[in-house]
Each structure stands twice: as structure tokens, then as C-alpha cells.
């Protein structure tokens, strides 16, 4: 075995250019695959965080019948008991109370149907993307009353300016009519034009005054501890079941995946795409390894003929070729993996993709990406490439072992 190793090493070092090329043929797919895993995870994490941190949370608590209730506001009339249970749950990192209301916004002789979102001003109480999209004016502040932020397209439609007041009317059979005339202190420019035409954010206390109930909420948005991406979905579902059991049948606990099926749909597109790309890289890498090793056997046809003529067994010749392949594939996979992990490590600190800002932001993504790769993914890309390289080397090895010594010695290349 030691002799085979020495011989293989000598053969590899004899034609360095060919060996380096084969090494690169293994190294590059592993490196690219690691980067692809890293980027795929970054996109998924970005999409997940954009959805959960700013909009859906990992979990949301609603009234049990909120989806069936089509002719009224699905309000939790008294949210305090829900908050008490949530506050005691050790798996929960933070939570926010929201009051979403359909309403009418009017200014002068214009009016539009809007969605009012009542939040507790301040980052901790909000869990909303809206503050991030403040274009002019200021975000809501703790202690604010009778102020609002409105979508910039809505401001245009109502001929309303920051600093002016807007009439908000909310009507429901159960709660009656509510009227509020807040001053618009800022405009919002969310990526969705539809949202920009319809959204108004206001302090939770003001939203509650519209439904004449100081304890009302439409949802409680919950963020769990130690959740980093959609790969933690089983834990999220476990916590949802646990919280549902604690809250009882009057409430419905839903996961982000149930609340944002469009995002889940995107994941369903992204994952097979990356898988298809990975497969193509593996196959291309395998073909390059096959080609390089085949050429190396072809180059040494006469030499192998002499070795066979001197009495070496065909099995031993096959072994030499395989050992060469093991050395090249192993080294290539190791180096590719090391380089890939180093680059993913560097990318894990976060980086921006210049020129893509609008496109990414328009689908709700953050423009900063954080690459990441799990040990299993790193091992899989290196291991699979190693096995593929060995498989690809089997054909030239088999061909070398079947050479007729006399024919091989006369081989002219």
C-alpha cells in the first residue's frame, strides 16, 4: 500500500500541470457548492427574517374564529390574559400587540379604504417593518397620541401632506362607529405600492379608541428564542402547539408559515433550484475529473504496457490509478472545502450586493446578506464530490488494467 501511495504521488508530481488541473476540477465544484449553500441559506434566512422579524413573527395569536368571522372585526376583546401567559413562556424572546382595523381615511373631498395598524410605538413593542420605511417626517414615538404615519401613495391619493390632519372612520356592527382625527407626522414608503396606498400606522391606544375598547387587540405577534431560519420550522411548530395548549380553545396560534404562504412558496421554488444547480455542478466536476484522469492514463499507455509486460497484475495497475484518484479527489475536496468555508465565514459577517437593492427590497428582502453553511452541508458537498471523483476514475482505471502489454508498448498516442 505504501508503495502504491509513493508511486501514485510520484506519478502525480511528474505531470504537475495535469494534476493541478484535476485538483482544481474537484476543488472548484466543492468551493462553488459551499458558496451556493451559503448564499441559498443567506437568501432563505433573509426572507425568513424579513417576514418574521418585521411582519408575522414566528407565531401569532388570534381569536379562534378570526378566519371564519367575515362580518365583523375579529378582535380579542381583552388581550391581558393572553399577554400574561406569553410573558411567562421561557421559549419566547419578545412579543408585540397589534390592532389592525379596516377603516376609511378622508381628507377634503377625498376618501380611501385603508388598513389601520395600531402598535405600541418603539422597537420593542412594534415588530413591524413600517418604521423602516419612514420616508419623510418621523416614526411614532412612545407617548404619541393622535398622530399617524401614512403610506406615501395614500397621501397622494388623498391630497394630504405631512403635518395635516386626516379623518379616520372605523365602523363595525359590534363596536359601532369610531372617529379619530390624527395629525400625519410621517410618510411611509413600503416596497409594495398596494400597501403604500392603504396603510396607516398609529399608536395602539388611538386604534383602541376607534373600537371603544382599551384592551382590544387583533393579534399578538411572538418571536421565539434561538430561531435562525426556516430550517427551525419543526421547533416553531412545537412551540405553537405548546402555546396553543396553554391558551386554550378561545385562541388560535398560527406559525409564520401559515400566515405567509407566499414566502413558503418562494422557499419551495428556491430549494429545488439550488438542488438542480448543485447537481449540474457535481456532474460537470465529475466529467472534468473523468476527462483528466482518462487523459493521464492515455498519456501513460506505453509506460503501463511496460509495467504489465514486467509481470505486474492488472489489479495492481487498477489500484495505482484509483490511489491517484483518491489523492487528487481527497486533496481537492479538502482544499475546496477549506476555501469555501473560509469564504462563507467571511460572508457570514454580512455583505451588500451592490446594484440589487431595489430588486431585493421590492420583494421584502434586506439588502444585507449573511452567508451560512451547516457542517452537514459542508461535509455533503466535499464528500459527494470525493465519491464522484472516485467513480469517475473507475473507467480510466478499468481501461488501463485491460491493456494488452504489446499493444500498449506500441501505442503512439
Amino acid at each position, binding site marked *: 500500500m505504501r508503495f502504491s501511495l509513493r508511486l501514485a504521488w510520484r506519478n502525480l508530481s511528474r505531470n504537475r500541470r495535469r494534476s493541478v488541473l484535476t485538483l482544481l476540477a474537484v476543488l472548484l465544484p466543492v468551493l462553488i457548492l459551499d458558496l451556493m449553500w451559503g448564499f441559498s441559506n443567506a437568501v432563505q434566512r433573509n426572507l425568513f427574517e424579513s417576514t418574521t422579524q418585521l411582519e408575522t413573527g414566528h407565531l401569532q395569536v388570534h381569536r379562534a374564529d378570526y378566519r371564519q368571522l367575515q*362580518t365583523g372585526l375579529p378582535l380579542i376583546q381583552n388581550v391581558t390574559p393572553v399577554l400574561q401567559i406569553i410573558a411567562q413562556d421561557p421559549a419566547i424572546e419578545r412579543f408585540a400587540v397589534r390592532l389592525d382595523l379596516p377603516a376609511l381615511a378622508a381628507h377634503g373631498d377625498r376618501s380611501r379604504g385603508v388598513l389601520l395598524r395600531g402598535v405600541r410605538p418603539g422597537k420593542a413593542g412594534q415588530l413591524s417593518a413600517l418604521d423602516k420605511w419612514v420616508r419623510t417626517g418621523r416614526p411614532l414615538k412612545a407617548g404619541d397620541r393622535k398622530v399617524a404615519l401614512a403610506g406615501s401613495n395614500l397621501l397622494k391619493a388623498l391630497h394630504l401632506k405631512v403635518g395635516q390632519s386626516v379623518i379616520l372612520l372605523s365602523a363595525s*356592527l*359590534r363596536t359601532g362607529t369610531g372617529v379619530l382625527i390624527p395629525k400625519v407626522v410621517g410618510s411611509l414608503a413600503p416596497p409594495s405600492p398596494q400597501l403604500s396606498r392603504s396603510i396607516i400606522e398609529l399608536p395602539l391606544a388611538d386604534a383602541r379608541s376607534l373600537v371603544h375598547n382599551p384592551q382590544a387587540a387583533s393579534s399578538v405577534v411572538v418571536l421565539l428564542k434561538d430561531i435562525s431560519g426556516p430550517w427551525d420550522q419543526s421547533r416553531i411548530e412545537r412551540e405553537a402547539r405548546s402555546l396553543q395548549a396553554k391558551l386554550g380553545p378561545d385562541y388560535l396560534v398560527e406559525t409564520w408559515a401559515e400566515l405567509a404562504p407566499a414566502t413558503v412558496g418562494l422557499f419551495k421554488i428556491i430549494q429545488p433550484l439550488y438542488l438542480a444547480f448543485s447537481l449540474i455542478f457535481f456532474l460537470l466536476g465529475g466529467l472534468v475529473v473523468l476527462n483528466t484522469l482518462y487523459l493521464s492514463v492515455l498519456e501513460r499507455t506505453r509506460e503501463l504496457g511496460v509495467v504489465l509486460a514486467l509481470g505486474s497484475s492488472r489489479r495492481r495497475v487498477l489500484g495505482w490509478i484509483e490511489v491517484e484518484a483518491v489523492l487528487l479527489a481527497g486533496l481537492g475536496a479538502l482544499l475546496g472545502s477549506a476555501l469555501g468555508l473560509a469564504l462563507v465565514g467571511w460572508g457570514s459577517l454580512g455583505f451588500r450586493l451592490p446594484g440589487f437593492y431595489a430588486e431585493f427590497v421590492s420583494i421584502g428582502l434586506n439588502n444585507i446578506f449573511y452567508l451560512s453553511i451547516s457542517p452537514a452541508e459542508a461535509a455533503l458537498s466535499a464528500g459527494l464530490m470525493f465519491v464522484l471523483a472516485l467513480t469517475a476514475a473507475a473507467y480510466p482505471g478499468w481501461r488501463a488494467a485491460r491493456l494488452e502489454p504489446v499493444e500498449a508498448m506500441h501505442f503512439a498516442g
Partner: protein
Amino acid sequence: MSRFYALTLLLLLMLPWAASAGEPRSGADLLACARHNWVTSSYHGSEDLKVFRADFSKEFRMEVWSAQENKQVMIRLLAPAAEAGSGYLLKGDQLWYYSPAAGQAVPLPSASLSQAFLGSDLNLEDLYRGTLSEQYTVKLAGSRKDKSGRLIDHLVLTPKPEAPVVYGRLELDLLDSNCAVLLMDTYDQRNSLIRETSFSDFVVRGGRVIPTKTISNDLLHQGNYSESTVDPSFELDIAIPPERFSLACLADDSQCGSP
């Protein structure tokens, strides 16, 4: 001179009726006859609207004025106390809402006409507009006699292709003798019956047969129904000052003209 013109116009309008007297009536004739019952030159009355849900109910009282064949409608809410003083003004396709808390009239999107009025199972379009003949193609689907031996005509109304109607079709049962609508079934676009509205407690006023009780059942939500009752003291074809149908009147009763 104006009386002469009015009489001439009336005679001209009556000609088709005279020509068709004694002949079987078509669906369109029957609908026009029914429309004659509910579309008046003017109207003033008080109405109660009770809205029932599975776990609660709410009652509204309102005063209603209408003119120009319901093209202009003013509704003033009298009860419950929290809503009292608020009101609606409908002029053609334009609708405004006034709330004392807002202190000014607010224009409402025209879609509000076909949305639940005060959260009930009725909408302003159904209650006051009577646009059936303009937006639907009508067909007399058959006639039958009820238990009392009265002849009931069954009309099927299908929306015209360009009509801004969300329903799939309407089916009406009306009394052949006086075109009083007894029942209106509303179907969605998938041909499922979604609402059943019955009319009863008719009074005859000025040659018109007017129901004073309307019950609308939301068949999609069990236990959801609304009951509208018109006080029999209502007045028809009276003179209502045009100021009644103004934004100034909507916001301030003292601006509504007299009487």
C-alpha cells in the same frame, strides 16, 4: 300649462300599459310593475333596523327622506345613542357620511353602496336604489298559486354583461295581482343561494303596495339576519325641500329647509 304637459306625459307613460291590458305580461312588464311599487317621487318615514347575530343583536332607528325616484336619499340615525346624529346622504352615485365626532361630511367610496349597511345584511343599493331593471335581464320563469289561491309569478333576473353587479342572479316571487314582491333570493356567481329576503306587512298607499317589514337572512352565516320595519305613518309623493339633500343639511339639521 305645466299641468297639461304633466297629463300628456302621464298618458304617454300609460299607453304601453293600456295596449297590453288583458294580454299575458312579460317578466319585464312585471318588474316594471313591481318597480312602480317601490320607486316613488319622494318618501319620508321612520324605520327600525334590527341586526341579529349568533351571539348578539343591535337595533338602529332612523329617519329617511328620498326624492327623485330614490336618486336622492338622506338617512339620519336616531338610535342607538352612540350613533344618533350621524347620517348618510346619497345623490346619484355619490355617498357621504356624517358623524358628529368628525364634525364634517366624509365622502364614501361608491362601493359602500353595495356593502353591508350599518353592518346589517342589507345594503343601500337594495334598500333604496332599485336598479334591478337597469342592471338585470329579466325572465318570467313561471307562475303558481299559493295556499291562499293567489297567483305568484316567479322572475329570474340575470345581470347584464356590463352591469357592475356582484351577484350571479336574483329570483323574485311577486303577487300577480299587484306586483308586490314577496321574496327575493340572491345567488352568488357560483349559483349558490346566499341570501333570502322576504317582504311582508304590506300597506297600500297612493296606489302602491308597500311592504313595511323586510327580513333578510344571510345563508352563509347561520343565525345572521336583519329585520327592517317601516313605521306605517310614512308619507309618499310629498314636497321635500331640495336643501334636505345637501351636505349642509347632513351636517346640521337647521340647514335642511322647511318643513
